[in-house]
């Protein structure tokens, strides 16, 4: 970590944030009988896993179907980047017709990934309602009219900064760091 990088959420705050998001979901979804969680590939799936696990810790009867969705083929920047994006796996073992869908991603920035995700999701049916849950909401940088319904933390950033979410499952520690560009 460089001197001007800062920790936005350390592991204690991170844990509290996940718990709060889970409780907010319970307030709105009651028994989750008609609810499905979809994590956007690649990094939204870790958050989706955690939210599902947290809900199950709170009440064993909350066993919510979980899918992972890759949006690569739906992106609007294909052929506008030098290096094409590598797709990740889509695993949607269920139909989302008439379900309440909670779409999950780690960071909400321009909104373009979420836009692609909404399109990709519709290949699996017409949901009754879709909500968006994100861990980090980077305000003021949106390119599209997309807002999250559940937000772990709002941050104010400049475009060149980068928010990185680390997960204990893959990176050894739960934390969120904001990387700032070098001065030179």
């Amino acid at each position, binding site marked *: 970590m460089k001197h001007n990088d800062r920790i936005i959420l350390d592991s204690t705050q991170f844990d509290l944030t996940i718990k709060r998001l889970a409780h907010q979901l319970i307030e709105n979804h009651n028994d989750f009988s008609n609810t499905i969680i979809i994590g956007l590939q690649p990094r939204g799936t870790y958050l989706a896993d955690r939210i599902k696990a947290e809900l199950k810790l709170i009440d064993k009867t909350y066993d919510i179907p979980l899918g992972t969705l890759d949006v*690569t083929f739906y992106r609007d920047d*294909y052929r506008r980047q030098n290096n*094409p994006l590598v*797709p990740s796996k889509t695993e949607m073992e269920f139909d989302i017709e008439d379900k309440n869908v909670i779409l999950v991603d780690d960071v909400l920035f321009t909104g373009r990934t979420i836009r692609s995700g909404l399109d990709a999701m519709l*290949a*699996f049916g017409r949901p009754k309602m879709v909500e968006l849950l994100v861990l980090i909401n980077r305000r003021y940088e949106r390119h599209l009219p997309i807002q999250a319904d559940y937000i772990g933390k709002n941050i104010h950033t400049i475009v060149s900064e980068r928010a990185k979410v680390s997960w204990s499952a893959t990176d050894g520690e739960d934390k969120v760091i904001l990387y700032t560009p070098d001065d030179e």
Partner: protein
Amino acid sequence: MMNKLSVNHLLGIKYLTKADINLIFETADHFKEVINRPIKKVPSLRDITIANLFFENSTRTKLSFEIAEKRLSADILNFSSSSSSVTKGETLIDTVNNILSMKVDMVVMRHPNPGAADFLSKHVDAKIINAGDGAHEHPTQALLDSFSIREKYDDLKGKNVVIVGDIIHSRVALSNIFCLKKLGANVRVCGPLTLIPKHIASLGVEVMTNLKDALNWCDVAMMLRIQLERQNMKFFPSLREYSMQYGLDKQLLDSLDKEITVMHPGPINRGVEITSDVADSKQSIILEQVQNGVAIRMAVLYLLAGKIE
């Protein structure tokens, strides 16, 4: 992971690296999931126009490319030479440039002359995909064949594959030999010597003339069609004699030491190279090949479209 092809056109397997082939396979894995969704279409190529130029008859390949293009949301132009100005004496470059001036980005071409796709790629400004050029190459067929073997056995390395029948007239055989060798499989060919090219050993391929021995050696047998339309002389006495020597029937299949996988690129001449009960048996993966063909062609189109400036 590498995420770009090393080539700008798909002219033949011989121009691809092993990494290219694996990238196509990994991309095709994702498209195979896509084409099994309730809505089987993605918008990736919605700003791309593709011309399918078929200067030679085709059912499967043409339909497979067409459905792959539609699943990727591309716009499509279809052309077949029998109903075109080619019969009025127009040259290939003129025909294609006329089509390209309608703002076409990619061309899928089948042509009776070997090297036609390669020639085109040097003279016109579009991404070219070879859908079969004479007895030269048929790269997407070889890719879908290896993809189907990979699906069944995970890895092709060390697998024994025998290609049976009309090798000399077969672009499928040549592309498959290149593809299988690049992926580390052992390849042999089997058939009457009149149907086997003279210098095939230089490709690292052994020749066998006894079908039963060849089948006992292999894990996978690719049965090829006798291409009567390309044979202007007699290569064997009669179809009946050919099928007695080199046809695969259920009795022969059941007499082998192990359970092999049977493939066929289609169209099948039932009763000549394989009998109906073999084609429809559980050891045959002929219909999987057809399904995989769509996923492979989507992957090739998607990856080459990514190289359009």
